Each structure stands twice: as structure tokens, then as C-alpha cells.
């Protein structure tokens, strides 16, 4: 192992693949790949995403000190690769999923259980070398916890509320949670398989539906990745409109999250207030962009439609209404000791874990990891805007709620700045095909950094696509945060994380 080596120095030992934008991609042989895993035990490089191809694995890395980003690829024709999960636990689930989907075996990984596959597909390794398999549920061996007075509580996958499916296995001693294990994958949609071979327009619509609440972020990441691959430059007005939509989405989701957290402590009036405010935003969305959730509004090359003439005034009004109502709601939150008693100190996540798992969004920022993709690596137009990225170190439910509250305030100010800065002009550049290419984009969704990687063919079709949800690195942290808490506080912790089932199962 080498001492102070930067990510780029290390990766330059591999072969750089031409046509990968905007950050380079290096092919590593088996030895270098193995050395990468070893080096990761001493370097603080972060895994941002890991995915496969029929005979290759890719990992998107960031050098935490330098901020350099690069993709490392490892061709593995023999169907095996040295598991990075040994050095970085955040990669364990990703590598289990790689095995399920592409049939590549992560060697050295202690946990060899399937992750996304539940034995119900009727086919093994659908994206690799598909093999017919009998569709029958296989028994999944949960981790155990043994001791006096321990008992299990299985929850889900079907829940009492209208939420997404996921199974939670609790081991408890009385009310105290000793261990929580998640079982996800119930809403696997096969996004990677569905998008392969599709024209850009169709693929964009599919990617927009990876996780519906972050549809703007996914569309934006897809558009930016395609633009990087094809060398396109969206017109300035489109860039402003994109940011406008992204901030509207962020506000709407954060508002509802805060309300829902309070509702889980049986304080439903917050949800009523904030639900009404969210509705204000959604109506403004519908009036300005023609879709309440802003689905399919961002396309490669620009945006689908321009703001109507009265758009700025609608948004100004909505912004004022939200600002006023939100201030009052947060006052109510601050003045309700019974509610603060529930959120403070509950579901503590240590900063060390947040860093180790490279957790983005409010989960990371409430546990002292101040990463925001709008700042680092950054993308237009945010370098022209003034905004603060709130960071706290408390790591509890209260901190995650307050980070959201601060982000709402920041986003409200961003909307004002964007509306002031926006100039008239074209809203889209036609997509011109300039040969094949690969592109990757990192975009800050309300949950954290969404990664989309694409390979576009000369004919303008998607050859391969990978969409990575921030929840991949947040779900495992929820398991850690709930440990030692009481069972009855789980819904509160879960809601404060608000991980996406759909996004991680994609």
C-alpha cells in the first residue's frame, strides 16, 4: 500500500478510456483493481456508485481531499471480481445487486446472499448471461441475534399505511432494538434493462420514474449525462429553468417530510399545515410547468417548455405564501416541547458512519458531512447563486428535520435569485448526434446525490444506463441509527431518513 497518493495518481496506472465525459474512466486489470480495494482501506476515497456490465464492473470514485472524480472499470471475463465491499461496507449491497443482475461474483465478500433478487423473476442474472430459473421464493437467511429475552418482530413488506414495500426484521429485547435488518428489492423495475437500446427520449421518461419524488433530479442527471456524452451545451435559460424546477421539487419534498416526521409523533397538525403548503408549491408547478411533480420537463439539450408569461409572478406568490406559512409552522414546532422531546436525541447517526458510507443529503449533513453536489462537483447555474449548505453534527431526528428546514429557506432564496437572474432566450438545443460516447452526471436531489451514467451509441440510442439513488448509502445507516433505540421510535427515525425504496430497488 502506498501512503499519500491521490485518486488520479493511483488510477493513472490503468488505461484511460477515450470518450468518457466529463470525468475520466480508467480500466484496471485484476491486480490494480485489487490494489484499489487495498488502497481504499487507508485512503478516504468515496464510492459514489458501483454497477456492472455483462463482463465488467464500474465504480464511480471521489477523492475526498482533492474532490477529483473518476470511474474505475475492471473487465472480468471470468465472471469474478475482487469485492470492494471488503474495504467499504457501503459497497456490500451494491455488489450483491451486481451479482443478482449481471451474475458477476464479488469475491471475498462475506455476505453472499442475494439482494434484489427474491427468486421470483423466473430468470437468473437478467442483465448478464440470462439463465432460466424456476420462479419460486427462496428462503432468505436473516442475521440473528441471540440472548436472553430476545424476540423478533417482522414488519412488512406490506405496511398498514400507503407506503412502499420493504421488510424490516427487528431483534428486540423488550422495547429496545438490538438489531434491525432490512430486506428490500420488492419494487425492482429493471431500469437498466428497460433503458438499454431505447432512444434518448424514451430512456429519459423511464429514468424520470426511478423514484417519483425525485423525478426532476433524475431527469436532470440523465440530461446532463447525455449532454456530457454527446458534447451538448444547453442554452442558459434552460439551465436556469432546470434549477428552478429542482428547487421547487426540493421545497415540496422537504415540506412534506417535516410534516410527516411530526405526524409520526402523533402531532398531525404539522402535517396538515405543511401538506397545504406543499400543495401551494405543486399548484404553482402545474401552472408554470404543466405538471404538478414536474415529470418529464427536463430533456437532454434543455427543458420541455418555457415558463408562461405569468410564471414569475405565480412563483413569487407561492414563494411568499410558503415562506410565511413555513415560518409559522416552524414556530409551532419550536414551541411544542412534547414534540421536541420525541425528535431530540432519537435515532443518532455518528459522523464517522456518515462519512464512511458517503451519505448524502440531509442524512449526511445532519451528521457533519457537508457534501452537496450543487457545490461539489458543482454544476450550472449554482456557481452564480448564493446559498448556504447547512451542516449539523447532532445526527438525530431533530437535526435531520432542521437541515431540511434550513434547506427550504435556502431554496426559497434560490428561487428568488433565479427569477431575478433569468434572461429570455431559447430553452433547448437540438440533440445533434456526434458519435458514440459515455457520460456521467451527479445531481443533488432532495435526498442526496443522484448519479446517472450512460453510454450512447452513434445512432443516438442508449447502450447502457445506470441510475444510482442516494438511498443506497442511507438505508444501511438507518440500521445503525436505530440500534439501541426503542421499537416505537422506528417510524420516527425511518421517516427522518425517508429513504427511497423505489430508487434503491430500481
Amino acid at each position, binding site marked *: 500500500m502506498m501512503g499519500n497518493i491521490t485518486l488520479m495518481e493511483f488510477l493513472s496506472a490503468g488505461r484511460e478510456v477515450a470518450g468518457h465525459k466529463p470525468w475520466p474512466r480508467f480500466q484496471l486489470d485484476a491486480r490494480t483493481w485489487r490494489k484499489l480495494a487495498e488502497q481504499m482501506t487507508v485512503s478516504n476515497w468515496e464510492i459514489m456508485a458501483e454497477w456492472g456490465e455483462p463482463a465488467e464492473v464500474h465504480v464511480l470514485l471521489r477523492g475526498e481531499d482533492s474532490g477529483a472524480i473518476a470511474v474505475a472499470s475492471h473487465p472480468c471475463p471470468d465472471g469474478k471480481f475482487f469485492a470492494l465491499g471488503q474495504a467499504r461496507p457501503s459497497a456490500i449491497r451494491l455488489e450483491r445487486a451486481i451479482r443478482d443482475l449481471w451474475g458477476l461474483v464479488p469475491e471475498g465478500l462475506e455476505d453472499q446472499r442475494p439482494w434484489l433478487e427474491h427468486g421470483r423473476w423466473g430468470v437468473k442474472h437478467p442483465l448478464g448471461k440470462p439463465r432460466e430459473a424456476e420462479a419460486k421464493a427462496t428462503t432468505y437467511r436473516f442475521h440473528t441475534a441471540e440472548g436472553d429475552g430476545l424476540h423478533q418482530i417482522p414488519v412488512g413488506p406490506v405496511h398498514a399505511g400507503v407506503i412502499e414495500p420493504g421488510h424490516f426484521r427487528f431483534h428486540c429485547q423488550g*422495547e429496545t432494538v438490538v438489531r434491525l435488518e432490512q430486506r428490500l428489492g420488492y419494487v425492482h423495475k429493471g431500469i437498466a434493462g428497460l433503458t438499454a437500446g431505447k432512444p434518448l427520449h424514451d430512456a429519459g421518461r423511464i429514468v424520470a420514474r426511478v423514484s417519483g419524488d425525485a423525478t426532476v433530479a433524475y431527469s436532470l442527471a440523465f440530461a446532463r449525462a447525455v449532454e456530457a456524452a454527446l458534447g451538448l451545451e444547453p442554452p442558459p435559460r434552460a439551465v436556469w429553468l432546470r434549477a428552478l424546477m429542482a428547487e421547487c421539487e426540493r421545497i415540496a419534498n422537504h415540506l412534506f417530510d417535516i410534516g410527516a416526521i411530526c405526524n409520526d409523533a402523533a402531532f398531525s397538525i404539522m402535517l396538515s399545515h405543511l401538506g397545504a403548503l406543499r400543495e401551494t408549491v405543486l399548484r404553482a408547478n402545474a401552472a408554470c410547468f404543466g405538471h404538478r411533480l414536474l415529470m418529464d420537463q427536463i430533456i437532454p439539450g434543455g427543458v420541455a417548455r418555457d415558463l408562461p408569461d405569468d410564471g414569475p409572478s405565480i412563483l413569487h406568490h407561492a414563494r411568499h405564501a410558503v415562506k410565511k406559512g413555513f415560518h409559522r409552522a416552524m414556530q409551532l414546532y419550536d414551541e411544542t416541547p412534547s414534540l421536541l422531546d420525541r425528535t431530540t436525541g432519537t435515532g443518532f447517526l455518528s459522523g464517522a458512519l456518515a462519512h464512511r458510507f458517503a451519505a448524502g443529503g440531509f442524512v449526511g449533513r445532519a451528521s457533519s458531512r457537508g457534501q452537496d453536489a450543487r457545490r461539489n462537483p458543482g454544476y450550472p447555474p449554482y456557481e452564480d447563486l448564493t446559498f448556504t449548505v447547512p451542516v449539523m453534527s447532532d445526527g438525530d431526528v431533530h437535526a435531520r428535520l432542521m437541515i431540511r428546514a434550513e434547506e427550504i429557506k435556502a431554496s426559497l432564496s434560490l428561487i428568488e435569485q433565479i427569477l431575478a437572474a433569468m434572461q429570455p432566450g431559447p430553452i433547448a438545443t437540438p440533440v445533434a448526434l456526434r458519435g458514440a460516447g459515455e457520460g456521467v452526471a451527479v445531481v443533488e436531489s432532495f435526498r442526496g446525490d443522484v448519479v446517472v451514467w450512460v453510454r450512447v451509441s452513434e445512432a443516438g440510442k442508449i447502450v447502457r444506463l445506470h441510475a444510482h439513488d442516494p438511498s443506497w448509502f442511507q438505508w444501511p445507516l438507518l440500521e445503525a441509527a436505530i440500534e439501541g433505540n426503542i421499537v416505537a421510535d422506528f417510524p420516527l427515525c425511518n421517516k427522518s431518513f425517508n429513504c427511497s425504496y423505489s430508487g434503491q430497488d430500481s
Partner: protein
Amino acid sequence: MTAVVWQIVQIVLVLATAPLVTGWVRWVKARLNGRRGAPPWQPYRDFYRLLQKEAVVAHSASWIFRAAPYITFASVWLAACIVPTFTTNIFLAPAADLIALVALLAIGRFWTALAGMDVGTAFGGLGASREMMIASLAEPAMLMVTFSLSLVAGTTQPAQIVVFVLGGNVGIEVSLGLALAAMLMVAIAENGRIPIDNPATHLELTMVHEAMVLEYSGRHLAMIEAAQMVRLTLFMALIACLFAPWGMAMPGAGLPGILVGMAAFAAKLFILATALAWFETVIAKMRVFRYSDFLGGALLLGLLATIFLYVSEAV
């Protein structure tokens, strides 16, 4: 003879008004939350719906599971019959006292908890264990309140306490105030209201009462829900009867007195139900481990009420 008539009227009355009281609480809560809310008589429709439905029983359930709804409902209903609501002149009044009342409620709870564990699901056990924890803390507090009241009135029969209070034998006492506070806290716990339990939650892991009855459906669920609603009305009637008996018809009062008693009872229910809805709106549910603080507080208040009685007697 009239005592029998009024007893029958009361038996029907508590059953008939209980859904309306619960519906009213829900409606006021919805309005306070800025929602339109289901009309207050929605629970009657729910009962009609539930009684039409098939009762699905888990294959692992024993006879306990089937019997529990009826036993629970019967015990709670009986308890509601012995608390004077609009008149003290009821047939069962001499037969029962506050200690019997506590026991009747305990029977209902015991059977619900048994049924919760009977099916063998994790939630049933979880709910039963929480319910028993609450009961073990709430019952002593309730008994403490009973003792302080019986020390004032010299009896544990609610009807006689009412007669004693209405006879002008009691002034404003600190003890009664403390006992009332303790009683309100116990009532919140016993009825599974916020901040102890959230009757409207969909979160399985936070439930107490709902967790035990998750497996019930059809007429069984109707029985359980009816018991729950009658219990809420019972506690309101009990608080009204013990701490605000004004307007209640005394033995020998004619029909006008009875009508005044009924109107007073309706007014008391209205005030208590509205206050409950307001209270549930402005407070969040507490942590499971704070139950003991909350109910320990109730016990302490009950104890203080008793001690103050002795102190004031000595002075």
C-alpha cells in the same frame, strides 16, 4: 320500580351515545387540523359496515380469540351501566362501587391482551406487553383517586358520592383538584389517547391498543371498537359524576328533573369531548419509556390528594 326503568334507559343511553362521542372527538380534531372531517355520526355507519362483513379469524386462533371481543364489550358495558350519568336513582347503583368498576375494566383489558397474544403475531404480543405495562401503572393511580374520594364522601359508591357532593357537604378542596388531575391522566391512559397511544395511527410499531386488535375483523372488530367507544364515554361520565355532578337528578326527582339531568349530561360530554380533541391536537405522543413518568405522576397526585385530606383533617 323507577330505578329499574332509569337503569334500562341508562343501559341503552350509554351504548347509543358512545359512537357519537367518539365521532365528535374525531370531527373536532379534523376541524382543528384544517380538514373537513367525517361527520360525527360516521361511527354508526362504520358499525353497520362492520356488522355486514364476514369475521375472518386466523387459523392459529383459539376460542379465546373469539370470546374476547364479547367479554371485553360486556364488561365495559356493564361498567358503564353502574356509573350514574343523568340520575343517581338507578337499580345497579347500590350493587357496585368504584373498586368494582376498576375490576370490570381490568377484566376487559385482560381479555383483550390475551386475545392479542393468542394469535401469536409479533404485534399482538408487543401491544399486549405495552398495554399491561400501562395498566400496571394506571390501576394503582385510579385506586388512589378512588381512596381519596371515598375518604371525602365516606363511601366508594359513585351514586352515594354524588348524593354527598350535591348535598353541599364538600367545599372546594385541594385534594379534589389533585384527584381530578390524576383521574384525567388515568383516563387518557386507559382510553389509549394521545400522548399515551394514538388511536388514529397506521404505524404498527407505535400502536398499543390497536396492535392487540390488528387481527380482528367484521363483528369481532365491531365489538372491540364498541367497547373502546363505550369506555371513553364511561370515563367521561365518571369524571362528570365524581367531579361535576351538578344537574344530576336525585332519587325522587320527577320527569323534569330527569330531563334536566340528561341535558346536563349531554353538556358535560360535549365539553369533555371537545377538550379531549383540543388536547390531542396540541400535544405529541410521548416515548414509550415516559409512560411511567406520566402515570407515576398520576399516582403521586392521587397519593397527595389522600395525604392532603389527612393534613386538612388534622388542621
